[in-house]
């Protein structure tokens, strides 16, 4: 690799002119130390930093020192180009014209026009001292720090750290003396830094600087990085310097094993589920003749059948719209049954949305049987906040929890359905419709355990398994999962059927799940066989 001293472009091995700026590279060959990675002048046999032997590329001969020429103030130009602004250039020009010096750029073959422009300033010999570091002048104002740190030529020659710091005497043969400019420290390091792929990463990678590393012999010995390595280093630098890799639009490569079900299979599955759902709209309840109510449903139906006319039942609609799809049909069936038996219903909710859902159910009921009237036969009390504390307050006095009703905002005493009610103990049955097990548990603990009123829970199929222990202990007289419960209840209570025909869909759904279980295992077994 040859680093162009002017523009820091890294040219391939053997290049004569810089690819980027076109300047001659004849005298500027740098060699990377295989051990520590430091950049060395081509004439070095040992690394200036770690003293490892610098191997030569095949067929390459060490360049005799005598042929070496000190580099032409390269870092200055680099710095100028990179750091100084147009203003500096203008200032420099002005200075040049003041001194009246002629550009000496003719003496420098391969110079770019911009360099030529800067030439006069570099070449302006004012005094012996200034001739040593003439190029500094133009930058004085701009870069005081670097000037202060500038090394004297002697120091530069002695310091192994400074590149191109060869013997001063060897310099002035072909080039003008002015070019023997001592690069300041920053400048001197510039080529190395430019060639260092980790440049600018000091703050990202908390490694100790390579300088402090002791010498480590390396297995891998190569004279200089190959073009490929070079390219890779460049790529690495590009990648590493970016703020964070793959920031935008990064695509996740999904592990194939993680999914198992491609989108097309998913779509097919979903369509099948949809078909199972719409099936009863076409078959219209073929399976309903097979429906056989189970014990829990029959128990509730019997209880309601045995209630005397005018008995008081408390219903709590403790479910949210999310689960209304499952609980509404059962609620409708039970309320229809209760209305047929002309039982008085008092309705409340411990969830804010529940009372609205109850209102919708009762609207349907009053449409069906107009002589079943609000206030006389049923009352909506409203939403009871406060969870446990709220339920406890029901035990002491109903009027404390609900002062007025929900629909007509009248005191409970004015409504005939609630006029005789003082506490929970005045109810004959309590029916709770709920979509979470915690609510039912609260009812059991705070109300049922205190008052011993017959207590029924109508819940979603999802939470039913969690409440079975309460039924076993006898605290729940009946526990009905709503989906199948609605179908069974309509048959057992012989109320107007509206959910009965859904039994087809439930059967289809079960068959679908069975097929899914078979298919997934068949595919799995086949893949397993292929894999082995």
């Amino acid at each position, binding site marked *: 690799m040859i680093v162009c001293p002017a523009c820091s472009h890294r040219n391939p091995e053997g290049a004569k002119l810089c690819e980027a700026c076109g300047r001659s590279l004849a005298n500027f060959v740098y060699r990377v130390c295989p051990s520590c990675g430091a950049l060395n002048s081509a004439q070095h046999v040992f690394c200036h930093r770690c003293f490892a032997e610098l191997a030569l590329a095949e067929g390459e001969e060490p360049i005799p020192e005598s042929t070496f020429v000190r580099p032409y103030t390269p870092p200055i130009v680099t710095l100028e180009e990179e750091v100084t602004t147009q203003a500096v250039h203008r200032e420099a020009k002005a200075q040049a014209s003041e001194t009246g010096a002629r550009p000496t750029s003719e003496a420098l073959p391969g110079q770019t026009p911009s360099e030529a422009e800067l030439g006069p300033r570099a070449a302006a010999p004012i005094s012996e001292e200034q001739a040593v570091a003439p190029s500094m002048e133009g930058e004085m104002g701009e870069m005081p720090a670097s000037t202060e740190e500038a090394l004297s030529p002697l120091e530069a020659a002695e310091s192994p750290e400074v590149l191109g710091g060869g013997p001063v005497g060897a310099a002035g043969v072909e080039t003008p003396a002015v070019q023997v400019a001592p690069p300041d420290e920053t400048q001197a390091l510039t080529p190395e830094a430019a060639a260092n792929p980790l440049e600018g990463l000091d703050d990202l990678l908390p490694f100790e600087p390579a300088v402090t590393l002791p010498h480590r012999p390396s297995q891998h010995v190569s004279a200089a990085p190959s073009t490929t390595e070079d390219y890779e280093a460049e790529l690495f630098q590009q990648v590493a310097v970016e703020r964070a890799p793959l920031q935008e639009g990064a695509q996740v490569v999904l592990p194939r094993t993680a999914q198992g079900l491609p989108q097309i299979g998913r779509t097919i599955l979903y369509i099948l589920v949809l078909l199972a759902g719409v099936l009863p709209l076409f078959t219209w309840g073929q399976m309903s003749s097979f429906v056989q109510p189970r014990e829990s449903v029959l128990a509730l139906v019997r209880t309601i059948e045995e209630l005397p006319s005018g008995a008081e039942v408390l219903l709590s609609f403790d479910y949210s719209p999310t689960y209304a799809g499952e609980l509404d049909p059962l609620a409708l069936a039970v309320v229809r049954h209760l209305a047929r038996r002309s039982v008085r219903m008092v309705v409340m909710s411990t969830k804010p949305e529940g009372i609205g859902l109850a209102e919708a159910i009762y609207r349907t009921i009053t449409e069906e049987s107009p002589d079943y009237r609000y206030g006389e036969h049923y009352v909506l009390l409203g939403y009871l906040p406060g969870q446990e504390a709220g339920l406890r307050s029901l035990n002491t006095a109903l009027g404390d929890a609900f002062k007025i009703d929900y629909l007509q905002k009248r005191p409970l005493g004015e409504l005939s359905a609630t006029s005789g009610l003082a506490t929970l103990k005045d109810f004959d049955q309590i029916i709770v419709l709920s979509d979470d097990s915690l609510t039912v548990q609260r009812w059991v603990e705070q109300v049922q355990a205190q008052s011993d009123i017959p207590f029924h829970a109508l819940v979603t*199929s999802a939470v039913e398994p969690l409440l079975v222990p309460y039924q076993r202990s006898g605290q729940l007289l009946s526990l009905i*999962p709503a989906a199948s419960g609605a179908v069974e209840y309509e048959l057992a209570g012989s109320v107007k059927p509206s959910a009965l025909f859904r039994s087809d869909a439930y059967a289809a759904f079960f068959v679908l799940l069975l097929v899914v279980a078979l298919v997934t295992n068949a595919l799995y077994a086949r893949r397993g066989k292929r894999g082995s």
Partner: protein
Amino acid sequence: MSEVLSGLFGQLSTGTAEVIGPWVAALLTLAVLSYVFGFNPVFRLAEYLFVGLAAGYAGALAWNQVISPRLQLLLTDPSTYWYYGLFFFLGLLLLARAFRPLSTLANLPLGMLFGIGAALALGGALTGSLIPQVRAAVVSVVPEDYGPGLVGWAYALDAVLLSLGTIAVLSAFHFATQGRGFVSALWHGLIRALGRAGRVLLMITFGALFAGVAFTSFALLSSRLVYLAEHWFKLLNRLGL
């Protein structure tokens, strides 16, 4: 301003709103169900609409039920309800989290939330779960307590299985693995064996719960489909078909 708006809405809602309402509902239902064909623009529209509505609805509820009544109390009778002022101040500090320079101010109300919540969780777990559940697991295993003959034995067997099962599931969660020494090896071997049985019970539990959720969710889907069918049916009826 608000009167004008509500007046406008009132006029609108008497007629048109009730007519277009069911249509909006049916179309939104269809839009969500279009998920069957993957994430499509119609579904995404419904999705974003739902998120916005849910947040707005909850915000309206929180304002009307929690903040507004207490704010009125505070303004009418500050000497009695001074503590509402304190909580409102803490609540405003909570809002500061969104602004970087002030975000540490929210530490104070969060500290209060964490402290009270931890106390509630601790008390709830002790009095609501740990002790009642241990008590519930303590049952007699004597057949005579359950009834005569085979029935008693069956119930007693159930009781044994139930208690052992609870213990097994509990030991399935044991975190420490074997330390040094024979006693430790024996002890951990026992726990591991129990834990394996506990895993089986866990799987049975998960299976049953999964089945329950599957049934519930299918019932929900079925309800929506029936609703849609009824909607179109009513419409066809109205058109005289």
